[in-house]
C-alpha cells in the first residue's frame, strides 16, 4: 500500500543519522519526526501513537542529546530527530484523578460559586498546594504552557484564569511525571476547566431560547415541509440563499428573507 505521508520508503536517498530508540542504535533519515523515525526503524506502534498531529497527547517523549545533561521532552509526532538522540516514549501516565460531580454546585449561581468551587478543588486535588515552584512542569510542557503559573492560579482560586491558561493542554501528562511535588497538573486543570465552562462563564441565552423553541416544536412543521420538497424546489432555495455577511455584528443581522426562521 502506498502511504505517501507516513511510509518513508521514498526517503532512502536522504542523509541518515544515528538515533538510539530505547538504547538500540538505528540510522534514520534526518528530516523525520521521532514518530516516523521509530516506524522507519521497523516498530509498529500500539501505545504511544494517536492523532499524529500534535493534539491527542498519546506520544509524550523524553530524550537526551549527546553531551547535554538536560532531559528534554516533546511530542514524538512533532519533534524532529537529531544526531545521537536517546529516545524513550511514555506508554502511559498514572495520574491522580478522583471522581467528581460537576453538577454539584448548581444551586450557587454564577456569582457566588467561585468560593465553593475553589474549596472543591482544594478537597479533590490537595497536592496542588504542595507546589515547590521549581517550574519543571513549565519547562517540560510540549505545548509551551506555563504550567506552574496555572497551578499557582488554581492555588489562589483564580479558576477562570487557570482554565484559560491551561486551555491548550493535550493531557500528555509529562508535567505530572516530572513534578517533584507529585501533582497531576493536567487532571486538576481538566476539573478546573469544566468548572469554568459550567459555572464561571455566562450561559448563552440565545442558545437556551433556541433549545426551548426546538423542544416546543417550533420548527417541526417547516422542517417537514422542507423534507417533502421536490429536489428542484430545494435546489432553488439553496441557490438563492442569502448569505450572512462575514463581519456582521453578533446577534444583530436581520436577513431580508425570514421565511424559514
Amino acid at each position, binding site marked *: 500500500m502506498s502511504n505517501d505521508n507516513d511510509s518513508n520508503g521514498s526517503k532512502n536517498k536522504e542523509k541518515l543519522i544515528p538515533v538510539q530508540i530505547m538504547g538500540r542504535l538505528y540510522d534514520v533519515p534526518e528530516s523525520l519526526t521521532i514518530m516516523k523515525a521509530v516506524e522507519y526503524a521497523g516498530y509498529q506502534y500500539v501505545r504511544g501513537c494517536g492523532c499524529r498531529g500534535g493534539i491527542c497527547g498519546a506520544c509524550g517523549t523524553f530524550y537526551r542529546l549527546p553531551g547535554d545533561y538536560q532531559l528534554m521532552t516533546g511530542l514524538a509526532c512533532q519533534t524532529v530527530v537529531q544526531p545521537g538522540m536517546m529516545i524513550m516514549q511514555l506508554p502511559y501516565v498514572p495520574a491522580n484523578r478522583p471522581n467528581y460531580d460537576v453538577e454539584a454546585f448548581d444551586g450557587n449561581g454564577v456569582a457566588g460559586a467561585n468560593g465553593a468551587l475553589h474549596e472543591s478543588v482544594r478537597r479533590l486535588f490537595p497536592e496542588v498546594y504542595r507546589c515547590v515552584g521549581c517550574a519543571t512542569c513549565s519547562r517540560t510542557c510540549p505545548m509551551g504552557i506555563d504550567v506552574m503559573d496555572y497551578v499557582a492560579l488554581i492555588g489562589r482560586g483564580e479558576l477562570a484564569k487557570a482554565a484559560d491558561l491551561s486551555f491548550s493542554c493535550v493531557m500528555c501528562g509529562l508535567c505530572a511525571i516530572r513534578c517533584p511535588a507529585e501533582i497531576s497538573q493536567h487532571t486538576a486543570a481538566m476539573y478546573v476547566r469544566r468548572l469554568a465552562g459550567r459555572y464561571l462563564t*455566562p450561559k*448563552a441565552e440565545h442558545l437556551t431560547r433556541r433549545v426551548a423553541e426546538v423542544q416546543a416544536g417550533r420548527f417541526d412543521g417547516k422542517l417537514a415541509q*422542507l423534507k417533502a420538497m421536490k429536489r428542484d424546489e*430545494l435546489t432553488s432555495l439553496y*441557490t438563492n440563499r442569502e448569505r*450572512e455577511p462575514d463581519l456582521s455584528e453578533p446577534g444583530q443581522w436581520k436577513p431580508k428573507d425570514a421565511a424559514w426562521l
Partner: protein
Amino acid sequence: MSYPPELKSLIRFVEKTRPQRVERARRGESYPALTLAERQDRLTRFHPDYRAEAKRALSVGSNKGDRLPIELADLLESHSRLDLDEVRLDRVDVDTDVLIIGAGGAGTAAALEAVQAGASVTVATKLRHGDANTVMAEGGIQGATAEADSPCYHYIDAMGGGHFSNAPDLVEALVKDAPVAIEWLERLGVLFDKYPDGRMKVRHGGGTSRKRLHSCGDMTGAEIMRVLRDEARNRPGIRMLEFTPALELLLDERGQCAGAVLLNLETRELYIVRAKAVILSTGGLGRLHIQGFPCTNHYGATADGLVMAYRAGIKTCFLDSTQFHPTGAIYPEQNAGLLITEKVRGLGAHLLNRSGEEFLFALEPRDVASACIIRECSEQGLGVATPAGRSGVWLDSPMIELLHGEGTVRRELGAKYLQFQRFGIDISREPMLVYPTLHYQNGGLVIGVNGETSIPGLLAAGEVSGGVHGKNRLMGNSLLDIVVFGRRAGLAAAAYAREAGAPKALSLDHVRSFERELTEAGISDGKVGPMLLPNYAPEHIRARRVAMHVP
C-alpha cells in the same frame, strides 16, 4: 527551518496582492462563488472521487456490484482474523447491557446517555479512550443557535452541501438536535468561545448561509473529547477496555446482535462479550490512504467497523465518496497531511495561486474547493512547488491579523500557530502551503434516526455511519453528527436492552457464510481484516522480516 529562499520570493506575490484583497474583504466583497453547473464541472474533472480507475466493484456482500475505492473494497472482502473452528463462544468474559465499540466522540456520548438511562455499559476501544478523529476536528460544531438562523437554514445548507443526496430524516434529526447537543456540551463544561455576556461566537464555514460554527479555539474537537471522556470517567457504570479492538460481531439464535469478540492487543487474548445491544462507533477510514493520499486522520482510522458490519450483512451507502479536506499542510515536510482547519478561511484567509491571485471563493463546500485547488495545480499550472516535490497553493493566514486585529491568529488558532512555530514559520506573518488531504469518510453503514441498523440490537453512530452528509459533509457537521447520533444511539440502545431479553446462543455463523461467499467469488488472497493498525514499516525493513511461526 522557516521557508527556503525560493518560497520566500514567491510569498512576495502574496504580499503584493494582500492590501487590495483585505480592502475588498472589509467591504464584504468576495471572489464569486461557482454556479451549481460549474461546481459539477470542477468535481467531475478534478475531484479524486471521480477517477474511475481508482475504484472497483464489490464481488460479495450486501453492496455487491457497488464500485468503491480499491483500498476499501479489498478490506471489505478480507477474511476473518478468527480461526472459526477454534474460537469458543461458550465462555463469556463480559456480560453487559450495552457494548460500545469505539471510544471517540460518538461512542463516549453514547456511553454517557446509555448509562444515564440505567444500562450497564462496556466500551471497547482499539487505542486509548479518546484516540479518535474527534480530537482532530479543529474548527467547530454547527448549530442554528443565533437569531438570524434556524434549523431550516441549517437543513438547506447541509442538503445543498451534500448535493441533495443526504437522507432527509437524518439531516432533520441532525439540525433539530443541534442546539440541544450544544447546550448539553455547555452544561458539561465545554469551554466554547463566547463574548463576555455569554453569547456564542459563531462564524461561517464552507457552504453555510449563516454564521453557525461554534468553536473552542482551534481545538474544538479536542476540547469536546476531553470533556466527554472526563465525564465518562466519573461514571462507575461505564467499563472502559482500552487497547481492546473488536474482531467480529456476534449474533444470537434470533439473528439479533448479541456482542462481539474482542482482542487484547497486548496479551493477544480474545474476550467474548455478550450484550443485549451493540453500538458501532469505530470511526472512519483515513488510514487506508485512498489513492495514496496523505491523511489527517488519527492512527486507528482503519474502517474496522465497516468490515465487521459488512460481514454481518449491513448495507453501506456513499462509501464511493471520500472527503478530501481542501487544506492539508504540504510544508514543512514533517507537517505534510496535517489538517489546517477551515476556520482559517472562516476568519477570512484567501486561497492563492503561485501568482498570489485568488482562484476560488475560499468557502466553497469542501469537495468543490478541493477540486479547484487540484485544478489550479494541474490544468492551470499555477501551483507552488515545495522542495520535497509537492505542489500546492497558499493559504493567506496573515490576512486574519489585518481583518480582526493583531494577535487573532495566536488567540483563535493557537494550536496551529504552535505547530508551525516549531518549524520556524510564523503563520500570523507568513502564509501556509496547502493541498487537499484525505479527511473524512462521507458514507458508511445505513442507519435510521436513532442509529438503528437492519440487524436488531446493532446500532451505529458517527463516521462509521452514512447518509447524514450524503456525498459531501460540511465543516462542523461531523462534530455535531457524533454528539447528536452518539446520544441518540446510546438512548436507543439502552431502551432496546431493557426490552430485549438476554441473548442465549452466541454465533459467528454470519462470518462463516461470508467466508463461503468469498470462496465462491474466488477471493482467496489471504488478506485479513479488520486492519486494526496501519503498517508504516519501510520496504527494506519488511523485506528483512523472515517468515516464522509464532507460538
